């Protein structure tokens, strides 16, 4: 009886046993990474034109801090070139953090970066 029990437990263990698929950053698709977009592709370089900058993370990330930074212009929320916001809104499978970027008088391509933990992504707009 006990011998059979031991064999049965061994078989059960073999059945439940198995490997989990390992975590592979290279297998993460773009949708699941941090994304940053702007509502406008160009701004007038008049120190008053603005655009909405949105960072998007997967809902699984929870409420996290996102640090926005720009090479030109300033964020209204901080009056500076960088600002930290939380992903405070949830929609579908994503959470969002928003800031508003105001242009300055410089012209050319402007890089806007969103960063959360070690994850980061960037987009560009043009000041005309």
């Amino acid at each position, binding site marked *: 009886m*006990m*011998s059979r*029990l*031991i064999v049965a*437990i*061994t078989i059960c*263990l073999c059945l*439940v*046993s*198995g*490997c*989990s698929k*390992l*975590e*592979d*950053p*290279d*297998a*993460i698709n773009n949708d*699941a*990474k*941090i994304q940053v977009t702007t509502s406008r592709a160009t701004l007038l370089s008049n120190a008053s034109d603005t655009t909405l900058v949105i960072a998007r*993370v*997967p809902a*699984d*990330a*929870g409420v*996290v801090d996102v640090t926005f930074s720009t090479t030109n212009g300033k964020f209204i929320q901080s009056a500076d070139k960088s600002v930290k916001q939380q992903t405070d809104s949830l929609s579908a499978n994503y959470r969002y953090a928003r800031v508003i970027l105001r242009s300055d008088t410089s012209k050319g391509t402007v890089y806007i970066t969103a960063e*959360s*933990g*070690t*994850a980061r992504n960037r987009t560009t707009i043009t000041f005309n």
Partner: protein
Amino acid sequence: MPGWKFIIASVLLFICLRNSGQPVAPALATPVTVDLVKQTLTDIPFDKPFYFLGDATNAVGVQTIIFEIKRGRGSKGVYIPIGTSTVRGSQQFICLFLHGTLGIDFLLPDHEYTIRITSQNAAGANLPDYSFEYGLLITSKFGDHTKLDFGIGWAPSPNALFGYTSVNIYFTPINDETNLKEIQSLSRNLFLRTSLFMGISPILFSSDTKQPIKNKYGAGNFVFGIGIRSPFYGRYTPWFRGKVGQKLLQPMRISIGEFLYKQANANSVINADVNKHSPFVAITYDWNIATLLGPVGKIFSP
């Protein structure tokens, strides 16, 4: 069938008793002291050879002692002879319990037996004052079902080498002094060698993963599975059958099981680690291996 070493031991014992008149205790066997006057025995070990040893100084007239045993207590069962001992000049007597006397290797834990001891004088007449039946239950402690071990495991999926310690739970009590080589029964070998274990792995020596492995709990990762004690030692293995083999290979265990761990999320924006599991194999040693290492071993004593 008795092991050949025990046959030789018995022959030597017989020769010693005949020639020297002094009883000689067999090596590795536990003495069970017989008091003919008080009609008592000391505790009998399970899964281990033993011999009856007594002093007939106060049992006047006793010349021969017949030892018999049966399973269970009370009137049921049939006595089977263990052996006959003759009182020598030193008034001492000794009788070895051999393999296979009851169709088993040794007395089993948590089983009842009755020992019948019949004392006779030189004329062969029974001496009731020094003859008795002694019912006994071979007792084990709860702790005999559990053994602690430590060792190194390898999980193929994360290619992780880790150290762990675990509690092994056996289906039968384990006597640390049992020499597994002397256990002939296949089923008894299975019980004495197979355990279920669960434990904690606080040390990760190496791994080959893109994302780091993290502790599932504060103390480490969780392991569980089945352990096979002494896979390289016993009557079935041809090597290291001596004392060194018993000391070094008997406390060894090959374990297979499941390694539960956490891994950093592949998505760096998600802080939460991900639960993972992988089968693993391991080589472990009982904690009492520490006794082999002398003073150094005390470091490892639980």
